């Protein structure tokens, strides 16, 4: 297969074109039924091109293309596409997952007000994410990065008439913006250097040759990590993700599996050469990842909203990815990003299927859905097993790679991180099976359940495909179809290396199994009573139920610290900055009042000034050579 060339631009281009077409044609209520007819073929085309790009990368190496963008003086920027192994895999995952989710959306969003608008936003979202993935320089990445952010704002607030949805959208936007400041600062740091280099290849060379100062590299790594913390919902900026559940469920699936939160991890992987040169920042990353994965998992335990449980699990799994990248497990992190995309999309779509049937998000108003919705129940079980990390489903392979990477890492404190991750495997299995048992097993707990029916095939079909992917994606570790290489040989930083600790694998499997058993005992067999536990330790329950009070803490921070700081800034602005401006105005006023005296309105006074100026000018020019006496000395 030949090289892909400029067709690379079509990968994000097709969905963006679909966005334009839908916006132009299919927004009107009487026409919006045709909206998916633009997006689905566009994403199909993107997927096909992505697969071609992946194969071409495996055979011929990196695929690139560029158009001149900005050429000013010594500055030259290209609008470029760079598809290497990392971005090729991401392209296939993003376009494939998006495609399935959009097909599912046809059924899920049927009859909603704003059906056309939904697909327009979704096109822009997919296109922006694909554009981010193919970007070959940081500036272009930033543009798409913000586009992804604005799309998630639009989609989380899709039901904008609901105050909760509008607030959640705003929260997601502001909180991620907080992290984006880091990205912007990184760009400013970079442009303050002598080289106007934003391309990943150029940057990597600068770092490799040690031309960039060590401090600059560390600053860049830290700032970009800040951006990733916001986008990928890491502690302490994770608070937006659970609220983002206010959007339609397929949106959540897309945000959690393929687009928004994946962008953060992808960016870190993309500029991993910066992090590799700044070990201190790697440690920070591992620490944040470990904290996030543990805290988020504990938050998921006490949550009753089915989608919010999944949201916390996403935060936790993203923590695993960050931990993997932080401890040097580059392949493990990206591999988990891939497998997670499949099983998390699956889990969200099954949750959507359930919500579609019973019209509530509260697990305690479900129950006994297993018999009424067998496909959803079974696919959800597969997703839960994969997330828990049970052999041989995909989550097992990727999670154990992360645990092993943490185990064998040289980062200080890696044993603690590994232990925390192992403990979290238990918690993960527990809350996932709590969700599954409460939703699908036992007796029906509300009238809605009795009327619940299996979703139509346009929704169930993607579930089955995702379930199959979630089950077998672990096989990518051995071979990625079409490339002839295993995942580890394909996506790697430096030499491929694989070290698997059977001790860690055994412990994690045991932890996952224990989590499932405890969930079974508590929520199915009723051998132990969760209510009794909560009554016994009300403080623990309150802590988990309120998600460790992070929202409260941020609120306090915003209302107390920020306002106090703003008051100081406002005083400074009013008295110092404004004072300077006022001072300049006053000074010019003072001078003009003095000058005003010369404007007498007397024409003859003006004429006198002309004459005086003329005489003065003549004396100044000729006075040196000729004295007045010379002029008057008559004679030839």
């Amino acid at each position: 297969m030949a090289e892909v060339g400029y067709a690379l631009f079509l990968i994000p281009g097709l969905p963006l074109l679909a966005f334009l077409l839908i916006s132009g044609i299919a927004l009107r209520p009487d026409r919006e039924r045709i909206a998916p007819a633009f997006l689905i073929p566009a994403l199909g085309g993107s997927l096909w091109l992505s697969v071609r790009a992946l194969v071409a990368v495996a055979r011929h190496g990196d695929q690139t293309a560029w158009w001149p963008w900005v050429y000013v003086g010594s500055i030259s920027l290209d609008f470029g596409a760079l598809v290497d192994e990392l971005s090729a895999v991401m392209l296939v995952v993003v376009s494939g997952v998006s495609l399935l989710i959009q097909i599912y959306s046809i059924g899920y969003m049927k009859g909603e007000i704003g059906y056309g608008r939904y697909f327009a936003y979704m096109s822009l979202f997919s296109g922006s994410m694909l554009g981010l993935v193919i970007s070959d320089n940081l500036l272009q990445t930033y543009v798409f990065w913000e586009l992804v952010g604005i799309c998630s704002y639009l989609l989380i607030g899709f039901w904008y008439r609901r105050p909760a949805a509008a607030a959640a959208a705003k929260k997601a936007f502001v909180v991620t913006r907080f992290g984006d400041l880091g990205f912007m600062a990184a760009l400013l740091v970079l442009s303050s250097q002598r080289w106007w280099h934003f391309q990943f290849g150029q940057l990597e060379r600068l770092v490799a040759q040690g031309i960039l100062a060590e401090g600059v590299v560390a600053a860049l790594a830290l700032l970009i990590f800040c951006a990733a913390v916001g986008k990928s919902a890491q502690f302490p900026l994770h608070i937006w993700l659970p609220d983002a559940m206010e959007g339609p469920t397929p949106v959540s699936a897309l945000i959690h599996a393929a687009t928004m939160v994946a962008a953060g991890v992808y960016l870190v992987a993309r500029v991993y050469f910066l992090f590799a040169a700044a070990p201190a920042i790697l440690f920070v990353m591992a620490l944040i990842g470990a904290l996030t994965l543990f805290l988020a998992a504990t938050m998921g335990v006490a949550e009753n909203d089915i989608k919010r449980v999944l949201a916390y699990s996403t935060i936790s799994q993203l923590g695993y990815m960050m931990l993997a990248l932080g401890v040097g497990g580059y392949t493990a992190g990206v591999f988990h990003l891939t497998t997670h995309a499949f099983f998390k999309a699956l889990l969200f779509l099954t949750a959507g299927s359930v919500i579609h049937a019973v019209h509530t998000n509260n697990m305690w108003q479900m129950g006994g859905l297993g018999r009424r919705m067998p496909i959803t129940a079974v696919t959800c079980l597969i997703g839960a097993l994969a997330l828990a990390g049970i052999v041989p489903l995909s989550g097992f392979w990727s999670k154990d790679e992360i645990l092993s990477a943490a185990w064998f890492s040289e980062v200080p404190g890696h044993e603690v991180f590994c232990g925390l991750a192992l403990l979290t495997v238990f918690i993960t299995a527990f809350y996932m099976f709590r969700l599954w048992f409460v939703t699908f097993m036992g007796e029906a707990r509300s009238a809605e359940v009795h009327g619940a029916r299996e979703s139509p095939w346009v929704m169930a079909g993607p579930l089955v495909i995702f379930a199959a992917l979630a089950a077998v994606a672990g096989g990518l570790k051995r071979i990625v179809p079409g490339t002839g290489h295993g995942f580890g040989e394909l996506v790697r930083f430096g030499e491929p290396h694989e070290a698997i600790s059977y001790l860690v694998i055994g412990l994690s499997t045991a932890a996952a199994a224990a989590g499932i058993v405890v969930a079974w005992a508590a929520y199915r067999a009723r051998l132990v009573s969760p209510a009794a536990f909560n009554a016994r330790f009300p403080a623990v329950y309150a802590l988990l139920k309120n998600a460790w009070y992070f929202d409260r803490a941020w609120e306090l921070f915003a209302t107390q610290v920020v306002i106090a700081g703003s008051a100081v800034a406002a005083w400074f602005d009013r008295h110092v900055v404004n004072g300077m401006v006022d001072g300049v105005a006053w000074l010019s006023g003072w001078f003009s009042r003095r000058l005003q005296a010369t404007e007498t309105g007397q024409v003859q006074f003006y004429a006198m000034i002309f004459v005086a100026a003329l005489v003065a000018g003549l004396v100044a020019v000729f006075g040196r050579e000729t004295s007045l006496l010379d002029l008057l000395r008559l004679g030839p």
Partner: protein
Amino acid sequence: MMSIAPIPIQPYLVVSVLLFAIGVLAVLTRRNAIAVLMGVELMLNAANINFVAFWRYGGGEQMEGQVFAVIVITVAAAEAAVALAIVLNVYRRFKTVNVDQINLMKG
């Protein structure tokens, strides 16, 4: 035959300077707008004398000096026509041609 010594250029220039100075003085000090205009005419004529004198003594082979003087006279006539029209209108508006009292542009 006793030839009359040729008149040197300086007397012309002295006359011209005096004429110009008187013109400037009139422009700067007279209150009557008509008198101010007359001052301007004096200055123009001082310039004319210079043109002709320098042409005559400067060895000009063509008639530049005279031509310039004629042009200045023409322009002066036009200027006088326009300026007098303005003065007339000023008089209609302000009922005076005293330039001291016409100071609407005072800052």
